């Protein structure tokens, strides 16, 4: 009863709950539907983690980091290089996350901080510059050719009844969701997370309680880069490695972040998952939507949602008394 009442108060939750019921019923009814749903969730989890990275930076620095996808791509190349040097996939994975954290922090300190006080547009231009710079450097070092990494989850397929689910899809879903949850725990329950949120929300007041705001913002960029690295590494098995691998993913992630409300971490993840499932199912069941129409369709959905809910699904107007 309590749950029902709370659902009724938040129509968005009602719609999402309805969507979940639809997916479950559909999956029970048709094994192809179930397969597409799982594949969509895996794809959506990648959108979601990159979208979350965008949201983190948006909350800390109030810009969309246009270089987020390229940073993710560059860190994926780091993992690639490590495996080429003989490291196992998961060892390379772990080291790459550390490298990504340092990378993100340094980007903030070196490129963003000097212009941050100037204007929002200056920061935006710097992120676009970073996009071009990283893209150029990676292409110069590794060439634009497709490269291949060892498959992280193997190629086996599980059969549940008549439903075939690849280990790859399940693994992607698991790793992405796990990294998002870990980050959520960090922000929600630790002192560091609380300080980071305070620094992003009210830098001046945060300084007065002794929080080193500049460090917190740099750490925020570092964590966003870690999420990006996870997204890049989880994208690699299906897209393979090339300098352009994250460009369309970044657009989907942007759509997912705006869908969720741009300020809402939960919204970004839910937006990503919803977008992934939606695109997969449409691709399966609506004949004329091929690969070419997927991105326009994603943005059409976004436009539709924003017309009804201008603040996104989870964006809320702040209640404040003055």
């Amino acid at each position, binding site marked *: 009863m309590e749950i029902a009442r709370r659902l009724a108060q938040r129509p968005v939750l009602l719609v999402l709950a309805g969507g979940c019921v639809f997916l479950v019923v559909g999956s029970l009814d048709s094994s192809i539907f179930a397969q597409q749903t799982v594949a969509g969730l895996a794809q959506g989890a990648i959108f979601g983690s990159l979208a979350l990275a965008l949201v983190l930076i948006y909350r800390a620095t109030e810009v969309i980091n246009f270089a987020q996808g390229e940073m993710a791509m560059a860190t994926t190349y780091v993992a690639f290089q490590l495996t080429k040097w003989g490291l196992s996939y998961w060892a390379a994975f772990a080291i790459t996350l550390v490298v990504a954290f340092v990378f993100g922090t340094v980007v903030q300190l070196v490129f963003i901080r000097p212009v941050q006080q100037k204007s929002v547009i200056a920061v935006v231009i710097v992120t676009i510059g970073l996009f071009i710079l990283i893209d150029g450097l990676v292409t110069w070092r590794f060439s634009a050719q497709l490269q291949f990494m060892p498959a992280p989850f193997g190629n086996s397929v599980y059969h549940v009844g008549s439903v075939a689910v690849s280990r790859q899809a399940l693994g992607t879903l698991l790793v992405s969701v796990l990294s998002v949850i870990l980050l959520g725990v960090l922000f929600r329950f630790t002192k560091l997370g609380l300080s980071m949120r*305070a620094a992003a929300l*009210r830098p*001046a007041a945060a300084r007065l*309680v*002794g929080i080193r705001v500049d460090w917190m913002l740099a750490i925020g960029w570092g964590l966003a880069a870690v999420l990006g690295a996870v997204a890049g590494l989880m994208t690699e098995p299906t897209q393979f490695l090339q300098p352009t691998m994250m460009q369309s993913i970044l657009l989907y992630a942007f759509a997912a972040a705006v869908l969720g409300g741009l300020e809402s971490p939960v919204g970004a993840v839910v937006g990503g998952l919803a977008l992934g499932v939606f695109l997969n199912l449409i691709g399966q069941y609506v004949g004329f939507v091929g690969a070419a129409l997927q991105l326009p369709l994603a943005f059409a959905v976004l436009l539709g949602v924003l017309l009804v809910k201008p603040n996104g699904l989870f964006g809320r107007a702040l209640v404040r*008394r003055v």
Partner: protein
Amino acid sequence: MTALLELKSVNARYGQLRVLHDVSLAVEEGQIVAVLGANGAGKTTTLRAISGTVRREGELRFAGRPLGRSGPETVARLGIAHVPEGRGTFSELTVWENLRLGATTRHGSSDDDFARVLRYFPWIEDRRGQQAGTLSGGEQQMLALARAFMQRPRLLLLDEPSLGLAPLLVTEIFRIVKELNEQEGLTVLVVEQNAHIALQVASHAYVLEVGRVALSGPSAELQEHESIRRSYLGY
């Protein structure tokens, strides 16, 4: 004995505009000191100069240590809690998170501090999950005090706690400030337009006029002072 906080000929400016002119003042440990003055007299800027949120020159010493060019983070970590204009509430966060932020720079458990804070502000217990921005003005002011107290400061800087509050609440806030001072030994430097109540609570006061110290002395003397009575107390 040297004062806990000492300012000697401190100047501060916003861009080209010089706001403080050779301000000197001292706060002894355990005292409540008030800074009075009209709008634009430089009261808020005095506090900002101490906490390092405005560019300042001159000699500032806290517990014998020069504050030099220390920024607000460092000053806060030295033991000065500044409750700024607008109270510095993190409106988007919960009441409880606001309190935890006060203890953010300290290591180890802050359970004791929570318990002590709840002794002075028992209503916080029931409202801990509430978004701080939805509290009333008086509650937000108390939350700001509580948050500052969580910092375990040696010196509390209070910027116009009475602003926008009903007279009854103003009395209540100052009662708590006095209580924290007497029972916890908290030293307070409070900036106020409401000279009446500030002089009742403070032992010493400074009167600022256009960025200069115009008068200073024990509150009892200032209360009797002709020009203070006319300009600030209104009788």
